[in-house]
């Protein structure tokens, strides 16, 4: 069994075991098993990074066995520089989420932990699948645990949110399925994604494919105007659910653009790049303004996620190296930062049971350690140099200016809005005098929460101060992708 298979199936096996054997009377044991499972599956992904060969665009750690011979579907895995860090991010966030739920979730603990572990395996599967159907199976399968996580442990309006999440994303994916089958027939019976990259396609076919993939991935990212499910879902989802959703699940969509839309339909991608850039800029600017007026902390961070993901798609569709690498770096950085933001809100929510900004004020007085962490993450969210948030945004803006000054200018305004809504929220929640009795009674974070936030803080600072390992790994793959996308696939 290869490393990638282990990375996928270890968490799923632990999760399934928890579902089968864990009962609420053994909640303590369940938590430990879940933690061990998450740590083991993280450790399994570490060698991927250690043994990864930089400087080549070829797929690494490839595994290939026939799966459904009737349709020539293969169990085909492999990662390149674009997926390596996403795999690591997924297994890392899972560890943090398991820690975050430790004392918070007291009912049906085994199902909660099991769902997250299984979800983690599915998402790693998405990032490493090189077969269309395998990709689709993992991509869709993530909906089931997430639906249950939102619906069982969510807030008062959880059912609406769970249905909205499920049906929105399902519609997109079903159209992608049609596109995958179309490609299978066009390519003469192959579901191999890499072979699709080389497939010549006419302009009608490319346009059809581009929009079928767009339906799947734009909803997932989510791009404006199909982003409306995200704030609803974030508000209702439990803390861990929000963290995983923002940190990893949104990346499934962005990753899809890189792996499917751009290389398979390069001409259509160029033709419709203006649309993608326009939608991304709207996400960055307009949604940034929307974030500014939110009263609910989770909603604010949710809108900020939409804006930050707008950066990612903007970077991809300006078609230069800085933009694309910047987009990928931003994906990973946003994974750490938004995960941390949501977990931080969870820390406050566990104590006060409110997410309204107005219910807080002066938290720094009662929770100084926590406020320090929150400040770091807020700074990262604004894109302060030295934090993870800076690297990606800066690269995308540079790339955008290179492509077109006005696009670059539009993108750069995001930094202003980002700073405005994040710092304003920080001021209202943490600074100033103690606002009310709830805040007065707050206890600072315990060792568990300290550990959880430190893990993320280390990641955020490491990536901000020393982004070289991230960019080095992806360089060759990005260059190769752009070289490929620049060549027209239209039959002459």
């Amino acid at each position, binding site marked *: 069994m290869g490393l990638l298979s282990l990375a996928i199936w270890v968490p799923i096996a632990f999760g399934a075991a928890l579902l089968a054997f864990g009962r609420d009377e053994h909640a303590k044991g369940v938590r430990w098993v879940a933690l061990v499972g998450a740590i083991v599956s993280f450790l399994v992904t570490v060698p991927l990074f250690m043994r990864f060969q930089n400087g080549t665009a070829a797929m690494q750690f490839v595994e290939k066995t026939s799966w459904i011979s*009737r349709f020539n579907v293969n169990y085909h895995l492999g990662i390149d520089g674009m997926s390596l860090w996403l795999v690591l991010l997924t297994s890392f966030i899972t560890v943090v989420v398991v820690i975050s739920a430790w004392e918070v979730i007291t009912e049906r603990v085994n*199902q909660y932990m099991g769902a997250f572990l299984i979800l983690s395996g599915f998402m790693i599967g998405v990032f490493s699948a090189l077969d269309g159907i395998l990709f689709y199976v993992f991509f869709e399968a993530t909906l089931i645990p997430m639906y249950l996580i939102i*619906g069982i442990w969510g807030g008062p309006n959880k059912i609406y949110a769970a249905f909205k999440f499920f049906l929105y994303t*399902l519609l997109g994916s079903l159209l992608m399925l*049609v596109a995958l089958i179309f490609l299978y*027939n066009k390519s003469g019976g192959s579901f191999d994604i890499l072979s699709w990259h080389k497939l010549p396609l006419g302009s009608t076919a490319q346009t059809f494919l581009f929009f079928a993939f767009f339906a799947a991935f734009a909803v997932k990212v989510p791009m404006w105007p199909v982003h409306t499910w995200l704030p609803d879902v974030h508000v209702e989802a439990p803390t861990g659910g929000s963290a995983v959703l923002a940190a990893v699940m949104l990346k499934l969509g962005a990753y899809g653009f890189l792996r499917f839309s751009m290389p398979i339909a390069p001409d259509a991608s160029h033709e419709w790049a203006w649309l993608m850039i326009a939608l991304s800029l709207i996400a960055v600017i307009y949604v940034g303004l929307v974030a500014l007026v939110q009263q609910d902390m989770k909603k604010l961070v949710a809108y900020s996620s939409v804006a930050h993901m707008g950066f990612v798609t903007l970077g991809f569709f300006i078609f230069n190296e800085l933009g694309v690498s910047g987009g990928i770096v931003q994906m990973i950085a946003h994974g750490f930062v938004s995960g941390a933001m949501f977990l931080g809100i969870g820390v406050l929510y566990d104590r006060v049971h409110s997410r309204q900004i107005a219910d807080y004020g002066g938290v720094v007085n009662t929770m100084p350690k926590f406020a320090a962490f929150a400040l770091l993450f807020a700074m990262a969210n604004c894109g302060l140099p030295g934090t993870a948030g800076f690297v990606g945004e800066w690269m995308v803006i540079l790339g955008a200016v290179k492509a077109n000054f006005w696009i670059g200018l539009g993108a750069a305004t995001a930094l202003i809005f980002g700073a405005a809504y994040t710092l304003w929220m920080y001021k209202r929640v943490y600074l100033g005098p103690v606002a009310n009795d709830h805040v007065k009674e707050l206890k600072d974070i315990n060792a568990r929460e300290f550990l959880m936030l430190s893990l993320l803080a280390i990641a955020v600072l490491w990536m901000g101060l020393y982004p070289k390992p991230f960019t080095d790994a992806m360089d060759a793959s990005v260059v190769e992708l752009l070289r490929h996308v620049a060549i027209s696939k239209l039959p002459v």
Partner: protein
Amino acid sequence: MIDKLSWVTIYPEIVLLVMACIIALVDLSDTSPRRTRTYILTLLTLAAVAVLTGLAAVGGKTAYGFGGMVVSDSMGNWLKCFASLALMVTLVYGRPYAADREMLRGGELFTISMLALLGMFVMIGGSNFLLIYLGLELLTLSSYALVALRRDNAVASEAAMKYFVLGAMASGFLLYGLSMMYGATGSLDLNEVFKAISTGKVNHQVLVFGLVFIVAGLAFKVGAAPFHMWVPDVYQGAPTAVTLLIGAAPELAAFGIIIRLLVDGLQPLAIDWQQMLAVLAIASLVIGNLAAIAQSNLKRMLAYSTIAQMGFMLLGLVAGSDQQGTQNAQAAYSASMFYVITYVLTTLASFGIILLLAREGFESEEITDLAGLNQRSPLYAGVMAIAMFSLAGLPPLVGFYAKLAVLQALIASGAAIYIGLAVFAVIMSLIGAFYYLRVVKVMYFDAPVTATTVSASFDVRTVLTINGALILILGVLPGGLMTLCYDAIAATLAH
């Protein structure tokens, strides 16, 4: 004419018939309320028949018997094998329910259901209009009796009445169509009819006229819209054990006769019947999915879901257009066969849970009756959730591959209209996902009304667990069953 080979082609049927009679006799001396002896004997018989037909299917030989009246081929034997297994599972799930409602007192349940199975076998194995019709009538007459098994129950009696009247009309349609075909071609034998039509010398108008009646009759039997009116009423009205009996195994037989009549016999008219099936499929997808959303009764919702699922299955038959060559047709029909088999597997699980929850005097028919099932019994909630997600077509469950295969068959034909059909089907299945999700929602998100845990006897628990696991396992490894369907259909089309 009745040579040794002829007996070989029908020996599972003979075993079934003889054992049905023996079981009826044994039942006279079995006075236990749960009919343990009869029950075990029935299961053993069904298992034996499943093994017999399964072995014949693996052998893969095609044999005609009784002067071409009966055909025993790989597809038919697989369908028979799965139908016997489905009936076995049905009886395992249904016995506690039936015993609680005094439906076992005369022992008819076992005997009649075996006769119904015999009817299915004859339908599947018939290569002659007359024989297919006889099999169909044996199945439907047994079904009418089974629906009316609780004769003191007004709802069940009403359902039986509706079923009988509409079913008789459908049979009339079918018989009328078949007689027209006979009139036009001069033969009842499918192969003769095929040859006569291929010559092109038969009046096309008469053929199409007959075809309309045949397709309408078949549509009645599979419950495709707009001939679906009996489905919700009968599903809801019949005792749940019987609902499962008429909703699971007979779908396999219905698929069998569609292949026999339309493909084996009337393939030269494919252009005509494919258009009719396309209309039926679209109507079924729309009506089934939209009406299912509005249901609060679980059995009724599943009835509409059946209509929608059958619509999807018909799309596979539509896709197998002759112009694209046999390979395409094989792929398309085998997609439909895969669809039916997995549908039956899933239906067994979902009705199994309903039967399990139905205690004495309490039917557990409303969707809200499932509330909080996850807290009461995570295992059964899990099985039901797997069944629902599979019906919705979500990977990694087997229902996804069924949809995938049908969509692939549609898109492979390359025609823009078929790609449009595929997109339409996909959008309809999104609407379908809504009501399947609602069942999951009720089980997992709502608070339970009662705190009692759900208990089941050992046999029911085991079979339900295996049933749920199979939906998942076939979802992870669907290749074997897909190849099986493909080879079976290929063998049938080859002769």
